[in-house]
Structure formats: structure tokens, C-alpha cells
């Protein structure tokens, strides 16, 4: 019902506007076009100045309202993020000055040079000196911005330091899966054709590779504060993106093409709760690449903690390989019985053999 009411009001507003518009046209014909033109011109010139003043006040007010809700109001949670924030402030400063000057000039000129019967427009077609100035000056400022930008860019995208904690993160519709390399610090080989989520191998790990046997799988990412982390990023189905707003970083997860990213977390989750004054603060991984109907819900969690807490968490984890094999062993007797029933075919799958041997070792 209220919908129709709104429609009716809208329709009425349309009608009224139209009638006023029509009437004003008749009035202008009666009053003389010249006079109406001059009047309209003065009103619009005045509105431009009003727009400029209210616009600048509005921009200030908007900043009051929202600045504290942005990430600029809190320190970056990674070392790379700090560089990005410096770059951001530098760019805000340069563009802010240009913005202010050009907008003020634009609307000031609109006001100042509004039509006046007495004034003649100044015939000024070109001036090479002026053109040169506003080619060279922006070019210099841009060179500075490019220079700093690339300096930081190469630092951020450069190789991860030796001894960085490797964590693999894999995106699929619509969640994230983490894998840690375990004690050997090597991630086991993967083959997407081995993916079998119902049998504990959601990532397609090749259990034949010994390096996979101590790999840990987790739904949360645990990181040690102050220790560089090297992310290896994968996707299974479509392109996702590991978006880390608090660390100021993001990197796409592309099926078939692993990508990487590294950074050093600066504050634990607990510290960030204090810094932001939000007791519910969590580091969230937001998918930043449109990935289907559940894109908006594709969230991951990062817990940054002290080495002590991290070790405690690590000790509680069990390699996925062991979990999978334990399940298989439970299933094996049942399978063997079923096989025995159906004639005299050997029931043990060839692939299971070496695993069974390793387990008995």
C-alpha cells in the first residue's frame, strides 16, 4: 500500500514540476526572453558559488562523519601496510591541493565571468608558455608519485625473506582453506585430479609425496606477530581474491596459476582489539573478486598471536594425512569384507598399499 502511495506522490510531484516548468516558459515569453535569460543566468551563477561553498563544507562534514570508520584512522597492521599508508597520504596531499585549487577556480570563474552586457569576452586562443607550465608541473609531481610508488611496489612485491612462515591458502566457492607445511617446512605436492572432499582430501594433495604427510590443514589462518608470512595462493573453481584490508594487501587466487604474497603482521588480534577499541575486532579475509552468488559471504579469519600461543595451537593440530589414513583404515575392513563376498578379486586398491606400509612403520 505504501508503495502505491509513494508512486502517487511521485506522480503528483512530476505533474507539479511539469506545470511550473510550463508556466515559467509562458512567463518568460511574456517578460521577454532577454530579461528571463539574464535572471536565470544570475541565479545559476549564484548557485555555482553556493555549490562550491556548501560542497567544501559538505566534504569537511563527510570527513568528520566517516574518517574514523576508515582504515586511515588506525595504524596499518603490516609493515607493507605502513608503506602503503605513507604513499596514500602523499597522494592525498598532492591530489587534495590540485582538487581544491581547480574546483575553486572553476566555480569562481563561473561566478565572476557570468554574462554581463557591458563586458566583452577576451579573445585568448592560445599561449604556449601557459601550456608548457601545465604540462611540466603535473609531469614533475607525477614523476615523484611514480617514483615513490614503484620504490614501495618493488619492496612489497619482492622476494619474501628467508625463514618466512609458508602458508597455503586456497579459495573455493565460498570459503577459504589453509594448509601449513608442518615440520619439514615443505608443502606436499598437489594434483587437482586427486581432489576428493568427501574423503578428507579437499585440496587434492598427493599423499604419495612424503612431504605432504606432516602438512596441517585448517579453516583459520594462524600467524605469529612480527614473523614474515609467505602466502601461496590457489583457487579451485573460479577466480577469488585474498583481500586483507587491515594489512592493506590483496592478491587474486587463480585456478591453475598459483600466486604469492608476503608480509609481516605487526599487531596480534588482541592488540588490534585495543587499538581499534572494538572488542569484536577480527582480521578478516574478504574475497575481493566476484566469484558467484555467495561472493559476499566468502570470509576467512586470520588470528595473529604471540609465538607462545601459536605453538600451543600448532601442537593441537593433527596432520591431515593421519586423519585421512585413520578414516581409511576404519573403512578398510568393511571394504575387505565386501570384496571377499564378491568373488575372489583383490580388494586393496594399489595406491593404498604404500600408505598402509608407512602407517605400520
Amino acid at each position, binding site marked *: 500500500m505504501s508503495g502505491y502511495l509513494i508512486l502517487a506522490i511521485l506522480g503528483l510531484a512530476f505533474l507539479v514540476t*511539469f506545470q511550473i516548468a510550463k508556466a515559467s516558459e509562458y512567463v518568460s515569453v511574456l517578460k521577454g526572453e532577454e530579461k528571463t535569460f539574464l535572471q536565470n543566468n544570475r541565479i545559476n551563477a549564484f548557485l555555482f558559488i553556493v555549490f562550491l561553498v556548501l560542497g567544501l563544507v559538505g566534504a569537511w562534514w*563527510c570527513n568528520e562523519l566517516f574518517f574514523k570508520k576508515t582504515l586511515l584512522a588506525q595504524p596499518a597492521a603490516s609493515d607493507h601496510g605502513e608503506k602503503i599508508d605513507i604513499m596514500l597520504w602523499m597522494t592525498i596531499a598532492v591530489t587534495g591541493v590540485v582538487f581544491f585549487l581547480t574546483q575553486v577556480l572553476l566555480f569562481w570563474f563561473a561566478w565572476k565571468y557570468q554574462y554581463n552586457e557591458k563586458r566583452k569576452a577576451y579573445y585568448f586562443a592560445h599561449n604556449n608558455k601557459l601550456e608548457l607550465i601545465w604540462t611540466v608541473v603535473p609531469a614533475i609531481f607525477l614523476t615523484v608519485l611514480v617514483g615513490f610508488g614503484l620504490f614501495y611496489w618493488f619492496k612489497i612485491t619482492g622476494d619474501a625473506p628467508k625463514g618466512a612462515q609458508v602458508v597455503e591458502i586456497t579459495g573455493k566457492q565460498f570459503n577459504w582453506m589453509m594448509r601449513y607445511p608442518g615440520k619439514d617446512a615443505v608443502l606436499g605436492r598437489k594434483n587437482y585430479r586427486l581432489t576428493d*572432499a568427501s574423503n578428507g582430501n579437499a585440496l587434492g594433495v598427493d599423499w604419495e609425496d612424503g612431504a605432504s604427510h606432516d602438512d596441517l590443514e585448517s579453516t583459520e589462518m594462524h600467524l605469529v606477530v612480527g614473523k614474515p608470512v609467505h602466502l601461496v595462493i590457489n583457487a579451485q573453481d*573460479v577466480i577469488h581474491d585474498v583481500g586483507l584490508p587491515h594489512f592493506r594487501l590483496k592478491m587474486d587466487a587463480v585456478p591453475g596459476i598459483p600466486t604469492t604474497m608476503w608480509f609481516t603482521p605487526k599487531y596480534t588480534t588482541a592488540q588490534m582489539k585495543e587499538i581499534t577499541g572494538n572488542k569484536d575486532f577480527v582480521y578478516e579475509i574478504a574475497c575481493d573478486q566476484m566469484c558467484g552468488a555467495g561472493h559476499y559471504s566468502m570470509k576467512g579469519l586470520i588470528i595473529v598471536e604471540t609465538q607462545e600461543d601459536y605453538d600451543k595451537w600448532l601442537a593441537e593440530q593433527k596432520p591431515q594425512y593421519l586423519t585421512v589414513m585413520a578414516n581409511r583404515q576404519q573403512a578398510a575392513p568393511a571394504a575387505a569384507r565386501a570384496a571377499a563376498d564378491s568373488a575372489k578379486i583383490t580388494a586393496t586398491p594399489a595406491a593404498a598399499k604404500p600408505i598402509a606400509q608407512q602407517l605400520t612403520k
Partner: protein
Amino acid sequence: MSSEITQQGQSGVATVPAHDHHEAHHAHHHEESFISKYVFSQDHKMIAKQFLITGMIWAIIGGLFSVLFRLQLGYPEMSFPFLEDIFGKWAAGGRITNEFYYALVTMHGTILVFFVLTAGLSGTFANLLIPLQIGARDMASPFLNMLSYWFFFLASVIMFASLFIQTGPAAGGWTIYPPLSALGQASEGSKLGMDFWLVSMAMFIVSSLLGGLNYISTILNMRTKGMSMTRVPLTVWAIFFTAVLGVLSFPVLLSGAILLLFDRNLGTSFYLSDIVVKGEILPNEGGSAILFQHLFWFLGHPEVYIILLPAMGMVSEVMSVNARKPIFGYLAMVGSMFAICLLAFLVWAHHMFVTGLNPFLGAFFVLLTLLIAVPSAIKVFNWLTTLWRGNLRFTPPMLFAIGFVSLFISGGLTGIFLGNSTLDLHLHDTYFVVAHFHIVMGVASFFGMFAGVYHWFPKMYGRFLNNTMAYIHFWVTFVGAYLIVWPMHYSGLAGMPRRYTDYSNWESFKQFAEMNRFISTVAMVVFAVQLLFVFNFFYSIWKGRKVTSQNPWGSNTLEWTTPVNPGHGNWPGEIPEVHRWAYDYGKDGREYISQVEPIGEGESKH
């Protein structure tokens, strides 16, 4: 002159100089049926109107879609039963479902970028202005020109049909990145709707190429006597560069789209490798999802200039006419458009800084991207200097031209953030990007288009648009655009991702619920005012105040030397000869000097 004669032969318009005006006009009426005049017309002016009105219909649809998804964004906890009445399962329970939301977002982008701001903008004003402003009777090939519109119409029909299929239209974003767009299992919108999208775009590209080749050959070959390239108005230069961009980059998108069709339907693996979707292991190996992004953005980036350049051209023209003062730095304007056109081809990978692109390669794209800011700055300062010491008439087109400059500055400056790969790491795919491109490419180009419509409406229909409605249209749209887009930068600086249907479950982004509601409300008001403009447009076609003088704006360019309602062939007599550039306003104490007036004795040089 020979081309002119064939022109008359083809179009069958008897405007041979020897005949008197009345007789020529008479013959013209007899030969054209309703079909050949209004439907399969080969008159560039009619084709321009067809492009414009089709574009307007699309703009209403695309704008309405944005209102619908802004309802969800602004009022995520509310339900609107009337939506279910209209959209059925797509709005079950009066809420916009996720699939529907993404379909709306995707179609909003596709429609506005391609169907409105490419076809609706270039198609309209290239067709209208090229022959009229360079002094030609029609396009180089009126027949291809007609085909260009009808291919656009075909593309429109296919895209419109895709809105009604059971699994919905394409829903993977207007950039349709595979594998999402390639795999029907991954998204409802990637089923039949995606094939419709691709076929429609293929038709669209054919239309765009037919049009573009025509525009280029007309501008290069059919200028009237004396109309050297340094004398054509900046609108024509802008359209020329636009056409060159389109002709060189649209074929690349076509190849990308065709390979995607193959991947979808013929089992190829151009973009697919190592994929497990919904537990299903796909056999495709060896493709690259990133290849598509390169092909897409090789068009996609020039595309933003295809949208923006015509707007820049029209703004330059309108601003000079209404400042009663020559455009400042004509050659610098042409040069900067040339630089933009050239650089547009060399910056596409700045959309791909976070795809795993080699950082070293990325560095070149940073450099080239920020280089575009230089010609853009030149243009802004030239516009400002054009206003300086002018005698400004705030006609509706002039208001939109000034609004354009303001928006172009605001949106252009945020491009300096995003083009810098270091900042892109933080801001990529956040609302900062949404704010940036909506203001600089979306709203600014619309302002250029509005400036064009208000300025040349008298030429199109021989009537004026209503001024009061025009002023309301401008001020509400201008204020509204800033109210919508300005706060978005803040959510972008909080890292709030684009293309989320709901932020309430995110600790990092839920603080912007009120802001989203505010933006949605303003968006609805602005949309309603666009409907006012549409109403003004159609009402004024039939009921607007009649144009009584040949040159209502006191403009120098050739289109205002034609009759108020020019027939096919534009000039009843001979095409006028041109003696000067288009911008002799306020020269030697005279308010304006038409291009057709010979240089007087003792006239000062500019």
C-alpha cells in the same frame, strides 16, 4: 565534389544546386515512405535519433536496475513485497536474491557501459555531428551506417531477451571473467544467459566497427572545401579519436568473447585449467584465466576513453560557444586527445596489478597510466582558461559542461591513486574504485551527453527543451552525483569490497550501513529526476518551444548554417565553403564569426 554527387545519387535527395529550395524539399517528401524515413533510414540525422532513443530506453532500464540493487544495499533488512509481485522467485519474500543481485549488477554495468555510453553516446553524436560539422551531405556509406544501427538493435534484442530466460541473464560482473563466466556449474548466470551476453556483444561489436569505420572515412574524406583538419571543431576530433580507438580495440574483445564461447560450448581450454567446481573435476588443462583479462582489458581500458572522449569534445564545443570565447589551446586539446588515445592502448594491465602480474611488468603500466594524467591535466587547465574572462551564458548545456569539468577533476584525481600499483594493492576492487569510475566515466560522460542533447536538440527536432526542467535536472543530478559518490571513497578507504549484496556479517565493513542507506536514497531521487529529463525530451519533441532562428546559440559551426529542420542532404543548396576555424568568438569586437565567413581585410590573426 564527386563524392557529393554520388551522395545525392544514393540518397535520392534532389538537392542539386540548380533546383530551387522549395522544389527540392517537395521531391524529398514524395520519395520517402514511413519505413525508409523512420525505420530503415539512411539519413545520418535519423540514425542519430534512433541511437539516442534506443540508448535512452537502455539507460532507463540500466538505471532502474541500479535502483533495485541499491534497495538491497541500502535496506538489507527490509522486505518489499511488490518486488516479489514483479520478479517472482528472483525476489522471493520481497528480498532481492543473491543471484538476482549479481544479475542486476552485471546488466547495469553492461548496459550503461556499452549500450548507453558507447552506442547511445558515440552513435548519436558521431552520426549527428560528423556530416553537419564537416560539411557533408551524409556519411561515407549511409547504408553501412544504417546497418550499424540495426546490428546495435539486434544486440539490444538479444541482450533484452536474456533478461527473461529461466536461469537469468549473465551475472558474473560486466567484466565476465572466466572461469566464473565459463562454467554453468559455478553460477546460474553462467548458464544460457552468458551465451546470450556473448552473442549480443558480438553483434554489438559488429555495429561498433561498421559505425567506426564509417566515421573515420567520413571525417578523412568528406570535409567540405576549406575544412582542413585544423579547422574542424573539437567534437569531430574527439569522435575521430573515439572511432580509431574502437576500431583497433573492439576486435580484441570479439576474439576474447569467441574463445569464451568455445570454452563454454565446444570443450576447449583457452581459459580453463586445473578446475574442481562443486566437487566435479574438470578435464580442462593448460588454459589461462588471465589471458581473458588481457584480451578484455585491451578493449576495456580504451573503452573508458571511447566513452569519455566524445563527452570531452562536446564539452569543449559547448563551453566555447557559451563562454563567447575561443576554446583555449585548440591544438593542445587535439594533441592531448591524441596522447590519451595513444596511451589508452598501453595501460590495460593496470586493471590487473593484483592478478599475479609480474611486478616488473606492472611497473611500466604504472608509469604509462600516470602519464595519462598529463594530457588530462592539460585539458582541465585549458577548460578553466576558456572560462577565464569569458562572458558566460548558463544555458542548460553550459551548466552540464561546467559540471563535467568538476566531475572530471574529482574522478580523474582518484585515478592517480588507483593507477599507482602500491595503492592499488589496498584499494583494488573496493568502493574507492566504484566511486572513481562512476564519477569520471559514468556521471562525467553522462554530463557530456546531456550537454550534447541540450545543445543540439534544437538541431535534431527544431524545438527547444524546457529550460526550467533542464535546470532542475542539472542541479539535482549534479548535487546528487557528489552525494552518492563522495562518501563511497570513505568506504573504499576502509577496504569495503564492491559487489557484495550484504555487509552486515562483516566486522570490518558493517559500520557503513547508514551511509549505504543514504546513498541508496539519493540514487533513487537522482533516478527520478532522469525520468523528468526523459519526459522533457519526448514532450519537447512535439510540444517544445519552436526554434525560430537558424542559429539559436550564436554558434560558428556549420550545422547552424542548415535550415532549422534540415532534410536529407542537410543543405538545400550547395554545401558552404569554410574559411576559418570554428572558434572565432569575441574576435575583433564581434560576438561570433561563422566558419563560412571569409577572412576580412585587416582582420587580426589568432
